[in-house]
């Protein structure tokens, strides 16, 4: 079974040299720690920054330099700053190669719900609806089941949608899944020590797999 860092680490392998990547809040943020050596990427923060660097050293925080999670961060050599309209302009124009974000539910046709639970205080969708409507490649990082033990990989989402037919891959603590063009979650890799049966039991949506499903490399 993967922990949060394990999920982030597996997702990091999906990043190719030269990618511009937008990382959502939560597990996706951890992905930055596992980008392989020799892979040059630039992180886009939708509040208006390309080339986001690590957190500043203590005492070097700058209130004017934050990421989309409102965390103090740094720039890297080659960074650029722009306004919010240009930021979402480059997102809509698909200049960002990969978007990694969390989800409450994903459906077997790639719909995603991650912004609203009816009856609970709604904080807003932030930039998520723009990102999922435009990104050419979206990977979801999430737990396989919710706190009630129910599968988050569903035939259809039950929560209000953030976007439709947009998720390409999902990494959970149990494995790596691809959303099949004709519908269904195709299991590509099992997490270390996880059996096919464990995955079947935790997946409410249609599960597809080849006869042999490899275990994820460490």
């Amino acid at each position, binding site marked *: 079974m993967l922990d949060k860092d394990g999920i982030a680490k597996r997702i990091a392998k999906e990043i190719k040299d030269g990618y511009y990547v937008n990382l959502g809040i939560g597990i996706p943020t951890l992905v930055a720690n596992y980008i392989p050596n020799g892979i040059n990427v630039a992180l886009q*923060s939708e509040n208006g920054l390309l080339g986001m660097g690590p957190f500043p050293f203590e005492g070097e925080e700058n209130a*004017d330099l934050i990421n989309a999670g409102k965390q103090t961060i740094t720039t890297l050599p080659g960074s650029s700053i722009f*306004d919010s309209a240009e930021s979402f302009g480059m997102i*809509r124009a698909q200049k960002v190669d990969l978007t990694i974000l969390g989800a409450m539910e994903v459906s077997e046709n790639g719909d995603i719900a991650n912004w609203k639970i009816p009856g609970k205080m709604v904080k807003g969708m*932030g930039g998520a*609806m*723009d990102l999922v*409507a435009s990104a050419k490649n979206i990977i979801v990082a999430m737990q396989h089941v919710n706190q009630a033990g129910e599968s988050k990989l569903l035939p259809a989402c039950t929560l209000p949608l953030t*976007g439709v037919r947009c998720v390409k891959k999902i990494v959970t603590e149990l494995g790596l899944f691809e959303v099949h063009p004709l519908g269904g979650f195709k299991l590509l890799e099992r997490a270390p020590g996880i059996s096919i049966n464990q995955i079947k039991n935790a997946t409410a949506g249609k599960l597809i797999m080849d006869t042999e499903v490899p275990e994820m490399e460490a």
Partner: protein
Amino acid sequence: MINKVVVSADAAIQDIQDGMTLMLGGFGLCGIPENCIAALIKKGIKQLTCISNNAGVDDFGIGLMLKTRQVKKMISSYVGENAEFERQLLSGELEVELIPQGTLATRCMASGYGMPAIFTPAGVGTEIAEGKEIRNFHGKDYLLEMAFDADFAIVKAWKGDTAGNLIYHSTARNFNPVMAMAGKITIAEVEQLVEAGELDPDQIHTPGIYVHRIFQGEHYEKRIENRTVRTRN
């Protein structure tokens, strides 16, 4: 060159009336017009509709205007961690319209660019699309979203000159330039106000034509919402 300088935040906001629609720059607590917010509270202007990406926190930013019940409606993409906000929302005292962040930014920009409406895919297939016109271009669906119409835009910049030209610092830029373009009247508060001619024309982020009033603010707190650091080894 045309001089846009006013003496203070109080002077800058003096003709803002109850019930008006304001755009307020900033993302989270970063790059917010602290001085104008204080002046709006001091003057006690009520029933405001505020277009702003966020609503501040309980004791800073627009949160301060919520506490004094000056806001009738918030138009935002994310209203964050704000207990008073939640209380007013649940009690029905406060109206909230949640809009995708890119749509919010682009509806401001559309106004500044004289475009009555724009097409965006954000929200297609979701409840955001309800009641909106959907149009397909090249096989992809887009929503028709209208340009915002704001009585005032209130922005915060780092440097400004007497002609109203503005330069922002780092990610405190965010929504400020697109809102600066979009106000019927635009008020800019700056950390440093300099004479026309001191800023390089190539480095202006907001040309002075968009700015009607400018003043040098004071006592910037620039609060950090989420301080994250690395420790040195």
